[in-house]
């Protein structure tokens, strides 16, 4: 019984992955490309940076980067807290 259950789950997973490979969305044709077009057309003029990825990370979505920096800070604080010297 358990074995058949595992087999069914395995087949479903394999079918899902194969189907995902077959019906994969074509590369380079996004469903909505308004944001992409906007960034590509205007990032150089607005941020004056050649690297559009950096201009998105630090300008358009800077708040996201602030969160990433906070995650790093939380990780460091967690490690420092866990591995501190305890008296006694």
């Amino acid at each position: 019984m358990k074995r058949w259950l595992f087999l069914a789950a395995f087949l479903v997973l394999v079918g899902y992955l194969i189907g995902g490979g077959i019906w994969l969305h074509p590369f380079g044709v996004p469903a909505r490309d308004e944001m992409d077009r906007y960034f590509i057309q205007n990032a150089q003029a607005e941020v004056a940076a050649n690297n559009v990825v950096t201009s998105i990370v630090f300008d358009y979505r800077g708040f996201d980067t602030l969160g990433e920096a906070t995650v790093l800070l939380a990780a460091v604080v967690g490690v420092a807290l866990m591995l501190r010297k305890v008296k006694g």
Partner: protein
Amino acid sequence: MSVVVRTVTRVILPVALAFGAYVIMHGHLTPGGGFQGGAVTASIVALLVVVYGGARLKGAKGWFAVLEDVGALAFVLLAFLGIGATFFRNVLAGSGGLFGAPVPQLGPNPGALDTAGTLPLMNWAVGLKVIAGLGSVVLLLSLFGREDG
């Protein structure tokens, strides 16, 4: 570690340091940036910990704490520069001052370091933060459980 490892470390240390600084400094021109370059530079700390042992680098803990604070504060202050319009507004871009040189509106250009407004400064802030953060994590992990840690 053996003398071979120590010698090789001394040779590649400046190279890795220069590469990390390059990746941080050119974050607004080439692939990379503060996080990536900071990770490259923090790998030097990991190398030093492996080769020389964490006890010899114990004094760096305080410096890392200061660097982390400076990086985080600089990042938030640079974000607050643009609070007149929005948080994270790039006020220095194209203003003609520091990092304010204009670039062509669209298309390729040689790429000047003196562009992109607050982006290079933020890259440095985040780079300092990542160097100090990852470096202190590696150092604390190496010092854990030691009597002299």
